[in-house]
Each structure stands twice: as structure tokens, then as C-alpha cells.
């Protein structure tokens, strides 16, 4: 629910039910990164109420649009996190199986593992996929 004024659309409070710090703090961060935002903060009016109020004041644009853009940005960021994470897991799995083959062919065992692991930990991440 949006609480604003009819004359001035650049400042509004969005009251969101069934949400808490999880969403509010993330959106607050994204909004604060937006150059159109003059002020953004959130509060949970009472710990027993299951709602948050997010205050958005902009430099002129309608607060609602800016707020929606922030949510959209957060979705895009999440999708990117998901894609990157999945790639990292796949990379890790293929590294591990490559290592296993190494150990099979090379009976030195432990020494090989720790050295490989060290390389893995210190090397740059392999591929970062921009798309999901």
C-alpha cells in the first residue's frame, strides 16, 4: 500500500504486509544506490505487526516508479547471483572430479589434493556468465 500526497508524487511511504528486514533492508540498499533517491529508509512500526514501512523521497521522479525500479533491479541482481552461483558449483564439481582422476593416476594422494585445493582457492573464478 502506498501512502503519499496527491500534489507531490516524489515522496511516499510504502507499507508492505507480510515482509520484514529481509526484503526491506535489501530494497533500502538498492534504493540508496539510485541517484534519483534523496532519502530512503525503512521501519518496522511494531515487532508484533507483520509489516514494514519503506519511506522513499526522490529528487523529482514519482516515488512509486523509483521504488518499482529498485525492486526490478533487485530481481536482476538475484538472477545474476543465482546464475553465477550455479556456474561456480558446476566449476567446483568438475575441478573435484578432475582431481579425483589425478589422484587415481598419481598415487601421491594427499600432497596433490592440498596443492590443487590451494591453487583453486587462490586462482580467480573461472567463468562468469552474465546471463541467467
Amino acid at each position, binding site marked *: *500500500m*502506498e501512502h503519499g500526497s496527491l500534489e507531490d508524487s516524489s515522496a511516499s511511504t*510504502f507499507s*508492505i504486509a507480510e*515482509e*520484514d*528486514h*529481509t*526484503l526491506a*533492508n*535489501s*530494497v*533500502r*540498499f538498492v534504493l*540508496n*544506490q*539510485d*541517484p534519483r533517491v534523496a532519502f530512503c529508509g525503512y521501519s518496522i512500526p511494531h515487532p508484533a505487526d507483520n509489516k514494514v514501512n519503506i519511506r522513499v523521497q526522490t529528487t523529482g521522479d514519482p516515488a*512509486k516508479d523509483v*521504488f*518499482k525500479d529498485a*525492486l*526490478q*533491479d*533487485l*530481481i*536482476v*541482481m*538475484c*538472477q*545474476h*547471483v*543465482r546464475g*553465477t*552461483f*550455479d*556456474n*561456480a*558449483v558446476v*566449476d*567446483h*564439481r568438475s575441478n*573435484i572430479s578432475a582431481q579425483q582422476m589425478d589422484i587415481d593416476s598419481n598415487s601421491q594422494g594427499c600432497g596433490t589434493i592440498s596443492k590443487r585445493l590451494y591453487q*583453486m*582457492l587462490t586462482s580467480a*573464478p573461472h567463468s*562468469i556468465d*552474465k546471463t541467467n
Partner: protein
Amino acid sequence: MPKKGTKKGKSADDEPKEQNKLPEHLEVQRTRVVCKADAPTEGFQYAGAFAAMGIDNSVSVDKFCKNFKVMVNRLTEDDMEFDMIGIDASIANAFRRILIAEVPTMAIEKVLMVDNTSVIADEVLSHRLGLIPLDADPRLFEYISENDVPNERNTIVYKLHVSCKRGSPRLTVKSGDLEWLPEGSQLPLASPAQSGDKQKTYTSFGQSQKDIFEKPLGVKFKDITIARLGPGQAIELEVHAVKGVGKVHAKWSPVATAWYRMLPEVVFREEIRDDAAEKLVKKCPVNVFDIEDLGNGEKRAVVARPRACTLCRECVMGPTGEQVELRRVRDHFIFTIESTGALPPEVLFTEAVRNLEEKCERVISELS
């Protein structure tokens, strides 16, 4: 605030390349949390913090996508650790909160007690049963609401029927004694059915769960002690497991715990040699420092394992306090997930991220 001066800090290679570089002490304030002996110091975070110096501190989506990295350090069946680089604490914390409280699992919610002559009270026994991790993929189930009839899509039924014979030694009841009932409840509802009618039970399964699910829906660990029975005591009960989330009750939390810490960074302001170096190495309880032999009897302390640092601040207290600087990298998180077994940890994280997306979508659609 960190002092200006000669610092042997390693350059922050994961920072965005800017035409204008901030002076080093400001760069430290921007990207690190410095842990002093008494308290950490906070820096500046907002987008325009360094605008006067021509530095853009904002994080646009493009910039985020360019800089964000994930590296998996450890991945096993039920536990993983990975590095998440280039993300703000608010979002990392959102993932952690969702993992603990909002990713659904299946857990025992209803216990139909037929007989319990053990010393453990009904309600305590029920509570113990509720906490048993089940080996069922929650994504294949639906939530059950108050007025719903329990069916094969929203309920898993188990039976526990154990007794200890008179004259035999005490019996330990383990979670493995729970028997999955893929056909649903076996307990008849109060009124006896008419002859020929199928006996009504506490659930109405349309088909056997054996036909729907590929693998049997057992318990994850078969060796959890539920109760102990003395000679002549018995427990007979039936339990119904349903889908839920951790914020309703911790038994539905899919993680034993999920946590992150910022990457520790230990920097020497000046070289620490000989005796002082030996002392520093001894002082650190987790062996962050090593001694490097410089030849002709001279020694120097080096930071060998900064990742092991627990930020106990032992090294910044006392005589070496001025020479050592303890920092944490603000946007580098070492994230650990310990799954309780229903879903593997990497799937849990993906589900958590998707959950945050769904929250955003919900709010967007509510506003328009």
C-alpha cells in the same frame, strides 16, 4: 580511523577500476572495516560519499554484474562453504535470513497418539518427533491450510509402533523405527463405516505415494533417539508431516545453521622482526602468522593464513597493537550453509535467492 603512513597492504584487486583513485586511507574506509583493539570502525557507504573527489561509490546493476564473483570452497552432501564477492551485506543477510526462516521443508506437525506408556510425556515426545529431519523434497509438496483434507500431495504419514517386552532389557526407540505409510493413515475415524464402504481414516489419499515419488520418503537419520522404553512399556502412534517454513517453527528450518563472515585481512603497518615476531606468532590462537627466516639469524613475521583469523584481536592488543592492523573486507563474504538433509546446500541457496526474487515480484504486482 586508520592512520596515514606506510602500509604494506595488498592492493584491493576486486575493486572497480576508477580513473580517479581515492587516497589509500579513504579507500580503506570505503572497502574495509578496521578492527581496533576496542571496537571496529565504520566507514561510509552511501552512493555519493566520495562524490566531491569524483569517485562514484554507487552500485548499479551493471557494475554489480561485472564485479560479482562466487567461489566454492567446500561442497559435500549436507554442508558447503563458498566465497561471495562484490555484494552488499544487506543482500547477503537477506539470503541468510531466507535460508533460516523462509525456505520450506517437510516436518512432523500432527501426532495421533494411540498408546504411550513410556515415561516421556505425550507433548515432549511429540516435540521430539517434530524435530526429526525427513528425507523428502519439499518442492514436490503443497502447503496444507487449516480446512484442507490431508492428501498424498500435502501430507506424509508415518507409523511408530514399538514395545518393550516384560523381562527384556530397556529398549531405545530410534528415528529409524518410524515406518512410512505411502497409502496414508491407518487409523479409522471415530464412526465405523457402513459395510462395504472403505473405512475412513485421518487422511484421504487418492493414490499411493509410492507411485508419485521416486524414492521412499524416510527419515534422514535413522539413529536419532526418540525415547527409551522400560519392560512392559509401549508407544503406538501415527504422525503427519506437512510443509512449512522456519519462521513458523524452527523444525521447518532447512539449515542447521547458515552464516557468513567477512574476509579477514591482516596487514602489518611496519615490519615485525625477531623476538617481537616470535611473540606475535605465539600470541595468535589460530596460527595466522608464520616466521620467515631472512638469513644471518634475522627473522620476520609474515601473514600466512589470514582466512583462519577469527578476529579475536589478540594481535592488536598489547605491544604489537600499533604495528598490526586487522581488517575485514566489506564486500567479501565467506558463506557457510549446513543443511539438515532435506535438500543439498547448493539447492537451498538457489531456492533462497529465488525466494527473494518472488518477494520482489509480489510487491511489484501489489503496487501496480
